[in-house]
């Protein structure tokens, strides 16, 4: 695999010629009416730490939910800010997710419940790894599902095809295709401008073709991002404070700049709510605060993109769900199935997808957790195939022979 990557790079370099300006990029950037390929974009959001999906999308129609969670359940919808926001008479959103209700109603937001990874592990470490590699139960996988999801391209590629807003490249994006980690657009540069020029000329002439090739891509990406940075820009929406909002805002900026972004990754942490998950009121406390930031971020992203949302699908995931029953410290422990969101123009929203297994004791996974009825690869696989246009799912999710699409996308 390694050598293949080098081979591809070296030959691309030879075909392209060192020093030749990537004219198509310049065209995409500067010409107002250039024939810009409106790239389809996939954005993945990872909720690290295992969000409590049962309090995120509340099954208020299931009496067992209230039996299992005497002190931390979200009350049935009654219109008050401390009750669930009714979606379909059975499920409701956590009150902090109220900003997403209009998107659900407009058919832009779909929810898949009882979804996640089939692997039984309750280790954050293993479960995140399995979800990001896209191969539950298989540790030896070297690369990530999003990297494999990139459709093959002939000819020169955008240096910012695959971008992580995590400071280091997450497992999901690692692999043969180039992906860049950009903790912030402003910092993606050599901080000394004279040094930058010298480095560029040094690496351009480096005898090592692979190093020279990567350096060329890097400086292209830097120039591209700096030129975006230099243009006056005001986000088209107000994002919440914090890293998550910043990440989404920068992804939106890259999408709107039409520089060839195809997949982007951002994460948000803090979801591991073993203790005091819910505050004095359901609209308060740790989970409520995190979900507020989460919902405001997604809503702002949707608004900011304007009509570009038609080309974008954003999916959310978390390594596993949390116990159906609350624990002794007003929190929840590591569970199994969870909930996933899909947001975007191509999404057939306004519906909670999936088969609800129920919370009756005999229906629980290992007698304690929400059971799984949708494999996360069914959701991601559909987006990869129908939205990104990569039909080769056997390569994206090796070992997963027959995904069952939920038909979330129009």
């Amino acid at each position, binding site marked *: 695999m*390694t*050598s*293949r*990557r*080098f*081979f591809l790079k*070296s030959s691309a370099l030879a075909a392209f010629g060192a020093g030749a300006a990537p004219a198509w990029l310049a065209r995409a950037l500067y010409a107002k009416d250039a024939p810009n390929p409106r790239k389809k974009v996939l954005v993945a959001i990872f909720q690290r730490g295992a969000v409590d999906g049962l309090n995120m999308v509340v099954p208020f129609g299931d009496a067992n939910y209230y039996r299992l969670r005497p002190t931390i359940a979200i009350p049935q919808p009654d219109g008050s800010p401390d009750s669930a926001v009714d979606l379909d008479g059975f499920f409701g959103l956590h009150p902090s997710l109220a900003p997403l209700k209009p998107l659900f109603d407009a058919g832009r937001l779909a929810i898949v419940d009882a979804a996640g990874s089939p692997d*039984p592990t309750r*280790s954050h*470490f293993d479960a995140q*790894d399995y979800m990001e590699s896209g191969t539950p139960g298989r*540790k*030896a996988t*070297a690369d990530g599902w999003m990297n494999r999801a990139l459709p093959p391209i002939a000819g020169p590629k955008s*240096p910012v095809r695959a971008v992580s807003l995590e*400071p*280091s*490249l997450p*497992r999901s994006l690692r692999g043969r295709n*180039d992906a*860049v*980690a*950009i903790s912030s657009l402003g910092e*993606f*540069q*050599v*901080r*000394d401008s*004279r*040094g930058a*020029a*010298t*480095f560029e*000329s*040094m*690496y351009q*002439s*480096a*005898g*090592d*073709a*692979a*190093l*020279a090739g*990567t*350096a060329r*891509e*890097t400086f292209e*990406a*830097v120039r591209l991002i700096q030129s975006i940075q230099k243009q006056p820009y005001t986000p088209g929406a107000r994002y919440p404070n914090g890293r998550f909002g910043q990440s989404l805002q920068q992804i939106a900026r890259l999408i709107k700049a039409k520089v060839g972004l195809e997949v982007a990754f951002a994460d948000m942490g*803090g979801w591991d*709510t*073993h*203790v*005091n998950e819910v505050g004095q009121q359901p609209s308060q*406390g*740790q989970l409520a605060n995190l979900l507020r930031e989460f919902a405001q971020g997604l809503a702002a992203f949707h608004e900011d993109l304007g009509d570009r949302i038609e080309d974008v699908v954003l999916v959310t995931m978390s390594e596993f769900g949390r116990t159906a029953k609350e624990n002794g410290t007003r929190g929840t422990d590591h569970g199994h199935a969870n909930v996933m969101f899909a947001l975007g123009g191509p999404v057939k929203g306004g519906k909670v997808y999936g088969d609800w297994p129920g919370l009756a004791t005999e229906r629980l996974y*290992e*007698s*304690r957790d929400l059971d799984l009825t949708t494999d996360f690869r069914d959701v991601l696989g559909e987006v990869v195939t129908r939205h990104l246009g990569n039909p080769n799912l056997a390569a994206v999710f090796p070992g997963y022979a027959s995904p069952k699409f939920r038909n979330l996308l129009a």
Partner: protein
Amino acid sequence: MRKIVGTLVVLAFGVLPAAAAKNSQSPFQIRLSKDQQVVQALNRLTFGPRPGDVREVQRIGRKKWVDRQLHPSGIRENPALEARLRAFDSLSMPPAEAARHYPTPAMIQAIATGRQPMPDDPGVQRMVARYKARKDDADPIAAPRRVRPNLIASASEEVGRQMLLDNAPQQVVSYDLNSGKLLRAVYGNRQLEEVLADFWYNHFNVFLDKGADRILVPTYERESIRPHVLGKFRDLLESTAKSPAMLFYLDNWQSVASNPPLPKRPKQARRGLNENYARELLELHTMGVDGGYTQKDIVEVARCFTGWTIKTPQKGGGFEFNGKVHDKGEKIVLGNVIPAGGGMEDGEKVLDILAHHPSTARFIAASLARRFVADNPPPQLIDRMADKFRKTDGDIRSVLKAMLDSKEFWSQGAYCAKMKTPFEMAVSSLRALDAHVENTIGLAKVLSDLGQPLYRKLEPTGYSTLNAEWVNSASLLARMNFAIALAQNKVPGVKVDLARFGSSADIGGIARAVLFHDLTPETTAALEKSSPATPALAAGLVLGSPDFQRR
């Protein structure tokens, strides 16, 4: 196709720097000059030359110097380093003690709310008092106080560590580990031993942030890895197999016979055989993925290791064999019958079988050759090293000696053929500039930005030593920025004094002083064209150059 591609890679990496592409002779047959041999010794057996090292090797004689590095107990360790290491007390603590002294926020909360007894450690008592004092703040468990890293990074070591202790005690163990590893690599005299400690830890990788491993790793490195880095492979293998850190990391501590003799208690979560350790033991630790074992062998090996567990891992308990959950049936591992009725010795027998398997000899030889010689080492060299492994019962020192006696090691094919890992790049920069590392917070962040946070490789594969892994955009930019920042004294917690370079930027002189050999003509041309204004910028540019990324 694969083979052709492989050859192209060898050409790109091995031959071009040696400028011998037209010669039909393999670059691994072309000897290095005397001066190049000295550079090669320092680049491969140390974390990079410091000022004065080249002369030191020349004075002692290359062969004798190498022999000394192979016998580190005869090298006097740097007393200043030893004095500094004493400050990082968690490095010498058993896990239980580290767990008590450096509790997590959840543990502090448990004590503060009376769910756990108050320990007599005054430090912990202070932490609990602080917790109670700031209880009005937003939930401290959800959001453990984030210490402002820049503040700590620019403090003195003593103050910085105390700030960490007051605000995030659970991070002290990680801080101590990072400090120990970085300071030893930069200042230690037993360099080959240090390079090997890094190599073997990475070979038997454990991820620090997986649960109890946060307190198990210091003991793992100290007792399971370090004593064996030049010893018998079989000892190294067993010490890792029995380490709580590895048992926890690869889940073997929870692995029990599929049909335990105990009556099943319905309320308990399902437990059974866990194959994780068995799989990685075969694939990554011993035989290699193509070593010739089957899925059936993995299951059989996993059965042999049932009952190898840990007493109370979160409290830092030690290794324990629990016969009650051990699978006592007969197993067949790689054709060897392990009779029914065995106990802990079943696992030990597996280690014997694996340590003496020819695939293991070859896999270990190849791994060492890839680290020390080239990405694609000549097969004849691997054969000779593997042969030595078999003949010496897996004696690591002898295998290394076979490599260091080979013509391939001292050839153009090996010279500057390896891309430095971020850790190697950062440490070799610090050594080249003779930097003073005041505290390691800033450097730990740099390594994270460069893509190699120490002790935090999540996957059991460890960090790759292959060139391709480290050629990517984010990492390259981070290298250039680190290089410039270091030379301009802008890495928090690190001081460099470039007065010895004078005030004018004599590029050739600075390059030789930093790189210890000549820059390529292309790099020199680029540098001269830019005519950097200060020696600091010139030194930064050399550290960030393609030439310095290789060793």
